[in-house]
């Protein structure tokens, strides 16, 4: 069965509070996730990145695949991009390019 989906985002599990972009989306795009749920994209967001399905407060768990993948460090509105700038691991820190070793 082919997936026939108009929305360029995936809801991976019914309890998730994030959506995954199937393509790059642009601020201002609106689409229906289900017959009674719509999403208004607040920021340009790349393929594979996450958007908030609803408003989340700092300290709230981020749920993807039906499982917690970390906690919010700042509030986000519905349709906002969720990433390292507003969430963190509950286990172990990530090393980003900002943490790259600069051997001088």
């Amino acid at each position, binding site marked *: *069965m*082919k*997936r*026939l*989906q108009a929305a360029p985002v*995936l809801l*991976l599990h019914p309890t998730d509070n994030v959506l*995954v*972009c*199937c*393509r790059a989306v642009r601020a201002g795009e609106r689409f229906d996730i289900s017959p009674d749920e719509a999403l208004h994209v607040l920021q340009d967001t*790349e*393929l*594979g*990145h*996450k958007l908030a399905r609803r408003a989340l407060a700092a300290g709230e768990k*981020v749920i*993807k*695949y039906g*499982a*917690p*993948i*970390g906690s919010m460090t700042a509030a986000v509105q519905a349709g906002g991009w*969720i*990433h*390292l700038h507003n*969430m*963190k*691991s*509950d*286990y*172990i*820190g*990530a*090393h*980003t*390019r900002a*943490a*790259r070793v600069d051997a001088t």
Partner: protein
Amino acid sequence: MSFQGYLRRDGRKGIRNVVAVAYLVECAHHVARRIVDHCDDPDVHLIGFPGCYPNEYALRMMKALTTHPNVGAVLLVSLGCESFNREALAAHVAASARPVETIVIQKAGGTRRATDLGVITAKAMKQNIADTAVRVPMQLSELVVGTICGGSDGTSGITANPAVGRAFDRLVAAGATCIFEETGEMIGCEGPMAVRASTPEVGEAIVASIAKAETYYRAMGFGSFAPGNAEGGLSSQEEKSAGAYVKSGSSSIVGVIKPAEIPEVPGLYLLDVVPDGAPKFGFPNISDNAEIVELMACGAHLTLFTTGRGSVVGSAIAPVIKVTGNPETYRRMSEDMDVNAGRILEGESDLGEVADEIVALVEAVAGGQLTRSEDLGHREFILTYKSFEPSGPGCFPRGA
């Protein structure tokens, strides 16, 4: 459906017929590489261990790799004064009834003489194993298949990894042996994973292996999370873990093994790659090929490699099938990718269809079809220092 394999005199069956040229210390690397370069033969592969200090793990790994079922003959290249036990390794290979020769550079008279001798020896070995190859029918149930992810992004966990998971389910159902690994990338998944254990002892081993990984990575200061993972949309170790874990599919987990432990009965295994004891020797796997090498040492005939950002690597000894989950990566790097799982995201296919394609490709590659990385000449290999205790009783089922 069956394909033609290579029957080894120790009774195991391989899917390639390779001469392994192995350097036993970095000081012999150049000569070994020149030997392989001068042979200019897609079936003469370079492997080796760079360290001069003795290490049981490295010897055990080299024993397992030089008697891998895809290997038909072995040429060892020693400088002469290193501590690697070349006699023990040569005796182990000889006991498997494979041709084995050792060139000691200091005895041969230096770089040029050792290289010339090595080229003649390796070419003769290649001819010999090609002429005397015993081709036999081989079934999916006789395959050992590994999986690894590298360069993961936000697409990996929803396309390529679950598609490989479904392919794993089909391979296990067909009686194959499947191995997934990198316990450092399963942090946060230990609860659901332990539920899938075939025995309480295996469940305990799963939980213990993940706890060990978390302790070890904390001591290293970083999780198994690269900058590219973040650029691809992954925000935390546990998000990456959840996506990586689905490569294992849904079969019962029958055992937890360590590098160079070869499963004796079919089924799905977790490979615990994090060293035992106090953290030393640095990161458990310094790059993806270190994990592929450990899968091969556990007998993997080939490896399913999922990637989002777009890894290009292959491997010495055992073919690597590259599955990308990202349609943009596929368009940009299609020459390097065997399977485009990214079309799931674009609504052009689904997980089941991609899993079917992966299983069909496993059969084709096992039957001799070259993977993209093989065809492009990728033969990466890396082996570094580690230390492990043997797995305790109950960690995996023993054969009759």
